[in-house]
């Protein structure tokens, strides 16, 4: 496999006066050229630290990282010509500039000749449906338009490896789809391009990524294709239960014999529990807990496993899980 990104025993420790926080703890990763690779993990798992090291914004405490064959510590100057990063919810740039002016400004930091840069910007604006906004001030853009502009900023310099950090966060369905479509199209143009994506949206990772790594507490707990990860929960029964609000149940459910994992997310005033059962018999114990809680059952379904279920099993909790359950 031609390697685009490789890390060896990568470790990063943040030191404060009173404590040390291990953000990355011996990460070994190999990402092939031409891959769309997803990095998934709960908040504080180490995803952003990993990305920041790979884009030369942070130094590792120990270990090594190579991007496009270049060492991120010693060859960062050459590497910076070959990479770009776009983060979700970015508010970068200058609100008073017009969209095309802002994009031109960023292209100049890479030394692009002005006229080719302007042509490339016009082409990308057209492709992402932003041509009409080219002369609008950045401050007047909607969040979806702004994120498309940010994606264009990442693509102007034609990077070999594109890092996307939560690129569709807080976008509506249409804008998120446009961003994903553009990423796919950009990848399809040249087989040697690589995308490394962090996301909170499991569906997005499932849909967009060839392979994913799940990071938890600074370590990679699993990696493979979405299908391979889902296979890890294939032997489990997946049950979704919707309950009326009430007292905390999650810990009690996790302790029921036969429950391999549980997560909860609140939606529209209903607590939606997802349970991974090692056998259907565990459902009896679950129902006893639910009945004892006095909560009303609003719905119950058994379904096929998803990437989110694999995540719950590997990490022990859901990506969007809050502690209300």
């Amino acid at each position: 496999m031609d390697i685009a990104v490789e890390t060896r025993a990568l470790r990063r420790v943040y030191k404060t006066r009173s404590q040390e926080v291990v953000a990355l703890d011996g990460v070994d990763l190999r990402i092939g050229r031409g891959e769309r690779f997803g990095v998934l993990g709960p908040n504080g798992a180490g995803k952003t630290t990993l990305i920041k090291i790979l884009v030369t914004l942070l130094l590792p405490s120990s270990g090594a990282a190579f991007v496009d064959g270049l060492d991120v510590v010693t060859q960062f100057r050459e590497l910076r010509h070959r990479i770009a990063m776009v983060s979700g919810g970015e508010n970068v740039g200058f609100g008073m500039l017009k969209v095309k002016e802002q994009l031109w400004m960023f292209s100049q930091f890479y030394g692009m000749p002005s006229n080719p840069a302007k042509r490339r910007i016009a082409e990308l604006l057209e492709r992402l449906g932003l041509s009409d906004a080219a002369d609008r001030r950045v401050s007047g853009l909607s969040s979806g338009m702004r994120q498309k502009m940010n994606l264009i900023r990442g693509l102007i310099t034609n990077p070999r490896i594109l890092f996307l950090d939560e690129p569709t966060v807080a976008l509506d369905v249409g804008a998120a789809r446009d961003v994903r479509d553009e990423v796919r199209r950009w990848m399809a143009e040249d087989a040697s391009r690589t995308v490394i994506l962090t996301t909170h949206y499991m569906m997005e990772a499932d849909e967009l990524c060839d392979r994913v790594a799940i990071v938890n507490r600074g370590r990679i707990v699993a990696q493979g294709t979405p299908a391979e990860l889902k296979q890890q929960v294939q032997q489990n029964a997946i049950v979704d239960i919707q309950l009326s609000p009430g007292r905390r149940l999650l810990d009690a459910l996790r302790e029921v014999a036969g429950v391999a994992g549980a997560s909860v997310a609140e939606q529209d005033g209903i607590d939606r529990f997802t349970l991974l059962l090692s056998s259907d018999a565990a459902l009896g114990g679950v129902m006893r807990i639910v009945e004892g809680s006095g909560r009303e059952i609003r719905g119950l379904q058994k379904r096929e496993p998803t990437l989110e279920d694999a995540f719950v099993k590997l990490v022990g909790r859901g990506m969007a899980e809050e502690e209300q359950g």
Partner: protein
Amino acid sequence: MSHPSAVRIFLKTIVARAFPRFVGSYRNRTWIVTETLLPLIGTIAMIYVYRALHAPARYLGFVVLGGVLLAFWQNVIWAMATQFFWDRGQGNLELFAMAPTSLAAILLGMALGGAYLS
């Protein structure tokens, strides 16, 4: 892979980073108060202090010149400092640091933009 030379990137970065300041001077006119009116009041205050000290009137021109230069450099440095702080908060600094350019060129661009405005 061939890239533009470091010198070319350096010069382009200076112009590009100064650009928002040039454009801003036309599109956002609050600088008229902060960078003209306030320094003018400061210079006038210096003249009054100088005269209150009963210092020789023939050197008054130097007080005006000193006040103007002080205001000029204060504007440049203050503008750079606030821009730098703002760039950090907005996330611009990360993008500047990630680009294959020099942070010195970024700072020079900020200074050039600030000098133009002053």
